[in-house]
């Protein structure tokens, strides 16, 4: 499979001298879902900001095959003055998609994340999980080929988070985007991805990579199987050495 997104010895030094990334090298192939775990402050968000063009890298080479990127942040970043429906339409609006088409795409995305019936609600009336769904729906309207996730479920309670993981996995299988996912949760990482990468403490680089062999679609109960525990154990060890 060709790479959808490739980092080749990417470095980032912020103007204030903070050395965030050092020679980060890896690729996300089409059809792959890659998760990055690493200590806080090691440059994970910076990685995604570079991939999306929000921040330029200070060294190395970035290859993005399709500039149509989806990007969800840890915060749902919904606009509080817009209803769920209007929030989901925002990106199409910014890209000047005609009104009828825009409404249709928004409705499809809303149905896909299970928010139908909530189109006319304002964000303040939604729970954290529902806000995140709306945020995902908003990205889906542009049918991205590559999807970046920056700890999207970091602030969500465990049970809701597991359920959102299951849904995200089904979205991945259905929409067939290449995913690059950041998380603190090793369980989430192993459950979702085809590959888990471990980053070192700052300046961040990739210090370990684990292929996840379980076939999709994965059952929620996979999390309680011995093979799953074994793999999360390995990732955990790698992460501990990253902290050291």
């Amino acid at each position, binding site marked *: 499979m060709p790479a959808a997104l490739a980092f080749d010895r990417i470095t980032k030094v912020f103007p204030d001298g903070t050395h965030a990334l050092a020679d980060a090298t890896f690729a996300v192939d089409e059809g792959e879902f890659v998760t990055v775990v690493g200590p806080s402050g090691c440059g994970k968000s910076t990685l995604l900001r570079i991939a999306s063009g929000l921040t330029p890298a200070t060294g190395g080479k970035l290859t993005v095959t399709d500039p149509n990127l989806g990007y969800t*942040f840890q915060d749902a970043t919904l606009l509080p*003055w817009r209803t769920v429906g209007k929030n989901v339409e925002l990106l199409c609006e910014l890209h000047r998609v005609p009104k009828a088409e825009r409404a249709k795409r928004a409705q499809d995305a809303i149905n*896909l994340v*299970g928010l139908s019936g909530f189109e*006319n609600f304002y964000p*303040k009336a*939604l729970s954290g999980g529902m806000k995140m769904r709306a945020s995902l729906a908003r990205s889906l309207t542009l049918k991205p080929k590559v999807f970046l996730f920056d700890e999207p479920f970091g602030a969500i309670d465990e*049970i*809701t988070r597991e359920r959102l993981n299951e849904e995200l996995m089904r979205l991945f299988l*259905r929409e067939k985007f290449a995913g690059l996912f950041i998380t603190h949760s090793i369980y989430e990482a192993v459950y979702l991805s085809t590959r888990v990468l471990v980053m070192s403490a700052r300046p961040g680089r990739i210090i370990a990579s684990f292929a996840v062999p379980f076939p999709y679609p994965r059952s929620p109960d996979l999390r309680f199987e011995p093979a799953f525990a074994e793999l999360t154990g390995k990732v955990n060890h790698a992460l501990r050495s990253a902290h050291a």
Partner: protein
Amino acid sequence: MSEHRNDGPGAESRGRHAIRSADRAPAPGSGGPIAIIGQEELQAKSATASPRRNILRDAMPPAIVFILFLLAWAGYRTFVLDRFKRRIVPLPWTVLTRGFTTAGASKKNPSELITGIKITTQVAVTGLVIATIVGVMLAVLMSTRKWVENSVYPYAVALQTIPIIAIAPIINIILGSGLGARIFTCVVISIFPIIINTLFGLKSADAGQHDLFTLHEAGFFTRLFKLQFQAALPSMFEGFRISAGLSVIGAIVGEFFFSQGPRGLGILIDIYKSRGLYNALFAAIILSSMLGLVVFFAVTWLRKIVIGRWYQAAR
């Protein structure tokens, strides 16, 4: 995984529509919603759920304060003031029975006072509208370039600190001594909170929201109108509310200095005072205080209309 039930009208049908237990989930690639909405997530409250307000209970405390105030006024007048001052300061109920009805400066009241309210309201509202337009435009300019902010800011502050009495002669030379000069005074007095609150509001959109607009290549005006202005509305309305009261003060101060032309409440106050029409004087003072309240609450009501659906204001 069991079926989930949700409380609340409408939630159940919505829930049933969206719920799929994991093993009955549609196979990848097949149509239909993929998502499950869990019970614990369905905390969605009705967007319009504001507690019914009890008007009587809300009106009671200020009414009591008002009565206490009238009693204190009457008591002070009766027991503290000497004979001569008592002739100047009427009892509150005398103001009510005579101040609004006896002869005014040139017409019989209440018609003179009513004209006064109209004129002062006109000046205050025109001033407030101009202050809003100019203030918001200045704030937009200041928000785009740091050097504009730095160069305009001290003058915005100066508007606030220079006493009108000091610049009254200059205003007089340039704008004369009629309605124009009064409106100008009103703008000078009420514009500062609008500039400052709008500027603060325009900068209040969070970094993540800005990133979103940057990612999707939003232009200057798109960002301004779809993000910054919307985010600014709550604090802009805070500014408008403060300026609403100031605009009435501005109109009345303006009338003190620039008294040519139609007679607003400020001019009436001046005339009644010099002619010893103390009942009417107090009536005019009460009306001008009430005018400030009315404009303030009108703006508060407007805020509710414009952003009430998504913004829960403290007061």
